[in-house]
């Protein structure tokens, strides 16, 4: 913590008795999660002076994948506190119970006082938290009562409605409504209860619906159905019709109360779809069996969804909000880029744009929405007696905001909030005695040990803006890509906060970077990149700048760094306060896919040759100079074309700034030489002396670039003109008489130099040309700061096709699967197990198909691509010897390799060339 003198110390080191009372040295904490929060917690625990901490280590993080040993272990302080478990949680219900028991045993046997579960796995699992509470160990997080109340979606909505917290129109008690509709009133309910032998009595003090609910709860315990799935389907149709009266244009979402991560949900647009949707969500959530609680939410589906959330913190008595976060930039329900929303941010923006009344009005609306959400969330948090940190998640549509759910845990993006606010705890008896907390994990530790004694804190502004980019092991289409090996990651730079699970910890003995394989055992998240700023613009610029200079090298390594780089630059080019909805990333990705479809038919060498011929014919005196600029011009263009996401960002940033498209022609708005220089900087090719030559502009090219830029700037100074257009006009004017201050001979040299520096720079037009030809440049932002997306990037069919371009699936080479080695063939792993695959089955790449045993070693052979077994030539052949190359299966691969003939490829390239040259 930071004391009143602004010094970072531990609680027990303070001179103030009151502050010392909050000492954390009694804590011995077991960290049971993994991911970036694990290392973050370890580091915070070191800082705040707890006694000891320990971690769990799963087999997948130690002994299943080579070169994937958990990096947190490097130099781990408490070597006896690494507790090996088969996995962090269980894959089945039985395994989960077993694991909970195991974890608590570990904690008890090793005298841990607290358990920290971060996010993911069992952090919000009421069963887990209850078990911990029963055992006498303190759970460093919200109590199980909070998890039960606020964690279940229907419960949470009920509480919200009672508190007048804005929720999505809809119902959360369809099972009760269905029961009431089926039986009728009080007497019928009691009769039914008697018939089913349930100990039930109707209470007049509560509503009929609540009475029906009580009866239903009894039936779940007894394991009998009072309403059938058909009853639910009927009632769902009735309710949906109701909603459509008020909101005829919207779709409706059915959401199972226990679902999460996109499961157990369906969105319908028509009455016809209701029955099957109900059946599907019930089946998906595995509640088909008799006596299951099949309650699901029916709510209005907000189309232009923005995903905002409020960070809450409380001690069971007070609850305050710590501002909001916008998490609308997401793909496949996974968040990508999270940015802060605070009242201070809006106020600052209002001041900055005071001359723009439309803008100010919009900002004031957003400010109002935020204030409402913060106020409502605080009341909600207080009502559920929140005693740690949680997040109040809402969806926003224009000025409307609707509470969705509460996540009763710390979240991945909590760092964003840490960037914008800190907490000031003041001694109620002495206002000069206070301490400041900057870390939410530290706050959690404090609350878990001294919660009741903590006074309600003040929130203090730390920065106006904060933001986080999630760095994931995904390919260009944002799908997980496992198996990459990280061979180097440059150290964090100024303003960069990087939570990387310890991957960056160098070998403590030799100081060399330790190779780390992204095995893909869990999720694709590698690290979190966090930074801050005095404005949203500065925040994003810093984030872009950090990624720009970061070197992340490896083998078969694919991350979303280029995606972030492009996206952030694109946003900076449009408007830092961009308000995307949750579908934007799909459209953006489709746009990048479209860029790629043009890039793959763009042959820069052909283009160069065509230009070269042209110059040789029309301006032969400049031909030698043109050739001299081969690498200067072609290199950065080829580099950026290698990465469509990076190109997307460059185009987004510079469109309207350095170029514009007028009547299908590219027009430079600045000196093209400066534009080229910007391209070099954008690609992090600046001539820093410590970089290897292959990672920066070639020295001979730098000479030309520097010389040219110096020339133009000196010329501008002498001529007293600032715009390049004016300078160019003078230089190109037919009179060629020297202006004042320059003698004629020098002026003629200037004209020559200008031609020399400019020749060939037209080639750079290829980049905006590709942007226009692909339609990518049409993606824009309107005055309301919302995205404007052309049709082909918003219709789901073409989106799918375009995104697929970015990551074509592996194609089959033939229709056979052969034995890769000689030996004894087995179709199953053990005599009592079923066959691995049979005729007619489909298989996916990597799936084990059969076993070949060589000298008693059983080798599992996996499928190299996706397909279907058409014929099994080794039926009943277990134990038979096969030879290397012998045919095992005849298959039908999912995708056949369509080989293009060289002529077809050439034609495509020629056509693209023609179109691009026309710009």
């Amino acid at each position: 913590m930071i004391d009143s003198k602004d010094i970072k110390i531990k609680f027990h080191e303070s001179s103030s008795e009151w502050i010392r009372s909050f000492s954390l040295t009694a804590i011995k904490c077991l960290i049971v999660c993994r991911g970036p929060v694990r290392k973050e917690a370890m580091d915070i625990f070191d800082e705040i002076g707890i006694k000891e901490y320990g971690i769990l280590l799963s087999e997948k993080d130690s002994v299943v994948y080579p070169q994937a040993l958990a990096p947190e272990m490097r130099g781990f302080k408490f070597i006896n506190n690494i507790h090996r478990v088969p996995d962090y949680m269980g894959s089945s219900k039985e395994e989960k119970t077993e694991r909970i028991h195991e974890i608590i045993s570990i904690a008890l046997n090793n005298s841990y006082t607290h358990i920290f579960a971060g996010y993911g796995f069992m952090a919000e699992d009421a069963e887990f938290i209850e078990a911990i509470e029963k055992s006498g160990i303190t759970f460093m997080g919200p109590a199980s009562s909070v998890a039960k109340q606020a964690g279940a979606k229907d419960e949470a909505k009920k509480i919200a409605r009672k508190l007048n917290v804005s929720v999505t129109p809809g119902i959360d008690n369809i099972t009760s409504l269905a029961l009431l509709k089926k039986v009728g009133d009080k007497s019928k309910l009691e009769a039914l209860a008697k018939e089913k032998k349930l100990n039930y009595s109707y209470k007049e003090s509560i509503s009929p619906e609540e009475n029906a609910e009580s009866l239903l709860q009894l039936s779940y315990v007894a394991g009998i159905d009072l309403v059938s799935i058909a009853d639910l389907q009927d009632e769902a149709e009735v309710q949906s019709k109701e909603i459509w009266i008020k909101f005829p244009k919207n779709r409706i979402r059915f959401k199972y109360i226990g679902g999460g991560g996109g499961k157990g949900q369906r969105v319908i647009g028509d009455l016809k779809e209701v029955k099957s949707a109900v059946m599907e969500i019930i089946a998906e959530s595995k509640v088909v069996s008799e006596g299951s609680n099949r309650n699901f939410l029916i709510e209005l589906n907000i189309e232009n969804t923005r995903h905002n959330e409020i960070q809450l913190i409380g001690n069971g008595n007070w609850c305050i909000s710590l501002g909001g976060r916008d998490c609308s930039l997401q793909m496949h329900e996974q968040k990508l880029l999270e940015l802060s929303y605070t009242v201070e941010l809006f106020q600052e923006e209002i001041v900055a744009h005071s001359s723009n009344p439309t803008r100010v009005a919009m900002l004031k609306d957003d400010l109002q929405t935020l204030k409402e959400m913060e106020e409502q969330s605080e009341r909600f948090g207080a009502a559920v007696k929140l005693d740690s940190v949680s997040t109040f998640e809402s969806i926003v549509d224009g000025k409307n905001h609707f509470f969705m759910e509460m996540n009763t845990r710390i979240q991945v993006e909590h760092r964003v909030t840490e960037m914008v606010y800190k907490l000031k705890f003041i001694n109620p008896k002495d206002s000069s005695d206070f301490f400041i907390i900057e870390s939410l994990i530290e706050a959690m530790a404090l609350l878990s040990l001294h919660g009741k004694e903590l006074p309600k804190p003040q929130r203090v502004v730390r920065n106006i803006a904060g933001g986080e980019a999630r760095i994931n092991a995904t390919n260009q289409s944002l799908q997980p890509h496992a198996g990459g090996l990280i061979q180097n990651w440059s150290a964090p730079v100024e303003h960069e906060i990087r939570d990387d699970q310890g991957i960056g910890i160098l070998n403590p003995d030799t100081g060399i970077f330790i190779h780390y394989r992204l095995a893909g055992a869990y999720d694709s998240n590698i690290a979190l990149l966090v930074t801050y700023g005095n404005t949203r613009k500065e925040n994003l610029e810093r984030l872009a700048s950090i990624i720009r200079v970061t070197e992340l090298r490896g083998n078969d390594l694919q991350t979303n760094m280029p995606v972030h780089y492009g996206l952030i630059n694109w946003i900076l080019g449009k408007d830092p306060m961009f308000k995307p909805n949750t579908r934007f990333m799909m459209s953006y990705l489709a746009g990048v896919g479209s860029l790629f479809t043009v890039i793959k038919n763009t042959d820069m060498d052909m283009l160069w040759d065509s230009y070269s011929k042209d110059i040789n014919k029309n301006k032969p005196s400049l031909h030698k100079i043109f050739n001299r600029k081969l690498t200067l011009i072609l290199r950065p263009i080829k580099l950026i074309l290698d990465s469509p996401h990076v190109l997307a960002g460059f185009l987004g940033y510079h469109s309207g700034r350095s170029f514009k498209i007028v009547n299908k022609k590219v027009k430079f708005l600045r000196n093209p030489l400066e534009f080229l220089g910007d391209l070099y900087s954008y690609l992090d090719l600046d001539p820093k002396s410590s970089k290897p030559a292959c990672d920066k502009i070639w020295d001979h090219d730098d000479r030309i670039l520097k010389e040219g830029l110096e020339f133009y700037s000196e010329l501008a100074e002498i001529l007293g003109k600032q715009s390049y257009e004016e300078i160019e006009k003078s230089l190109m004017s037919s009179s060629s008489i020297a202006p004042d201050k320059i003698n004629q001979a020098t002026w003629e040299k200037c004209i020559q130099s200008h031609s020399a520096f400019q020749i060939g720079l037209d080639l750079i037009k290829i980049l905006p040309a590709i942007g226009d030809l692909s339609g990518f440049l049409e993606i824009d932002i309107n005055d309301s700061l919302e995205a404007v997306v052309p049709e082909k990037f918003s219709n789901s069919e073409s989106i799918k096709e375009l995104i697929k371009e970015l990551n074509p699936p592996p194609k089959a080479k033939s229709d056979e699967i052969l034995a890769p080695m000689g030996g004894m063939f087995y179709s199953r792993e053990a005599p009592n197990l079923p066959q691995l695959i049979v005729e007619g089955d489909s298989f996916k790449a990597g799936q084990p198909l059969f076993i070949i045993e060589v000298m008693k070693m059983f080798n599992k052979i996996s499928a190299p691509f996706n397909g279907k077994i058409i014929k099994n030539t080794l039926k009943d052949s277990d134990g038979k010897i096969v030879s290397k190359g012998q045919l095992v299966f005849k298959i039908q691969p999912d995708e056949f390799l369509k080989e293009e003939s060289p002529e077809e490829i050439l034609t495509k390239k020629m056509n693209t060339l023609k179109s691009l040259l026309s710009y």
Partner: protein
Amino acid sequence: MVEKILPSYKFGYMEDIYSALQNPLKKPESQIQSKHTGIYEESLKLGEELLDKPKQGGGIDRILVQHSKDRMTVWERIKVLTQSEPNILYQNWGPSLDGASLVTGILNINGRDIAVYGHDFTLRAGSMDATNGNKLARIIYMAAEHGIPLIGMNDSAGAFVPAGVGGLDGYSEAFTALRKISGIVPSIMLMFGFNAGGGSYLPRQGSFMIQCENTFFGLTGPGVVKSVLGEDISADDLGGPKVHGKSGVVDIVTPDELGSLKTALRLLSYLPNNNSELPSFFPTSDPLARYMYEEDILFRKTFNAPTGMNTPFDITLYIQNICDHGAFFEVQSLRARNLITAFGRLGGHVVGFIANNSAVSSGQIDIDAARKGTRFVRFCNLYNIPMIFLEDTTGFLPGKDQEHGGIVEEGRRLLDSIIDLRTPRMTLIIRNAFGGAYATWNSYHTGADIVFTLPTARIAVMGPAGKDFIYKDEMQKINKEYSENLKKGISDEEAKKIKDSSLQVLSQRYEKDLMNPKEALALGSVSRVIMPGYTRQVLGENLQYLIRHYKPSPMGGIQREFE
């Protein structure tokens, strides 16, 4: 006034920028104008030109071509190896005074002196002419004389045809020099660009070869191959990194030039300076007595799987958990992965790990694996690197392909290299150790210092199939019972069941009697059992002991890295 003469490294490019690509508004640089331009000033000017000449290479046009292929110049590559100023020798060698397209010198890499040579492809395509073979030989001999490692950056089109026989002689000189230092100082050869002919042989005389993507080397290029043999094949398929990585001609493959240079530096950290020294020792913060939970978990999972003692597993997982902080460096990782060769540190000491990998081909030793292993063992032998042999093999691979390929000879080579091994060497038997493979794989009688075993080991003449030999009588009895049962009228199915269960009992007896390390321990062929979890500690402490009593020295007699 006497002004200090600044070593002016005028980038030749300045004159080379065509006059139109200059800033006409710039004020001319003030030169240190001497009032005199006498003889002394003339000689100063000459000195500067001579110092400058080699840095210019073949001039801006050729440098442009090199860069346009995304290749660095030799000077830029040197800068990656070390930021400190290189000490370049024979700078103006050759009639053109340009260094004869070969740069040789001494670099300071993290405090170590490293000899380096690199072809300057921008000058006559880095070719060998009548004189620079001698220049190359000189740096090679110097490296050996001073006992420092050599890094070679090969980027040469081969012999300079106009130089005639002189160019070929140049190669002979260089070949000879490299052979003469082989076994005295380790060398790391990096392949850049397109190398053919002599340019391919020469680097392979070095200890390690590293090749990156978009490079080629081979006897001749695809063009000549097409015209002479009619074979239509791309450069990458003929002599690219995947081809050579698989055959073992190249030891390490990297994605690009930068990767090759960085990998060379990483590899260097495991190598000693010469054959009289041990590799550098780094005191480690990873406790030697660290209990290896992962070892226990790995073997428990593996052997308790449905396929029991016949379940394969990836041996690199084991090596990873033994090494300090899990760091190890695999050599020839694209080839014969049924045998893993890697450098790692144990208790701060560099160790050469050689391990059978049951995850690939049951860990059997075939021709490729034998060759790979032999090379590695011989290298460690020459350079005083202790070795740890991890044993888990069902034996040498039999069959037509292997016999026709000469497995007997290759196996013999591996065996001999192990017998020759004079550095501290220990063996740990993990699971399978049968027959000839057991006898070959660093057993006590081949000269191992200590042989350990895990309790899971099965050391025997033959694997489970051996029961047919050991229990001959019992087998006969069972077969007799089977025929008698059939005669009695018992159905074929029933009789088979009875026979199978009797065979099962026999197999179990075999497992119990022979599929364990008891006999080997009794005979003293194995020193002791290590319980899973204690491998690092036991191996580490014994290693320390053995190194305490080992004096690094050049190998006696005439030995070379591989024969």
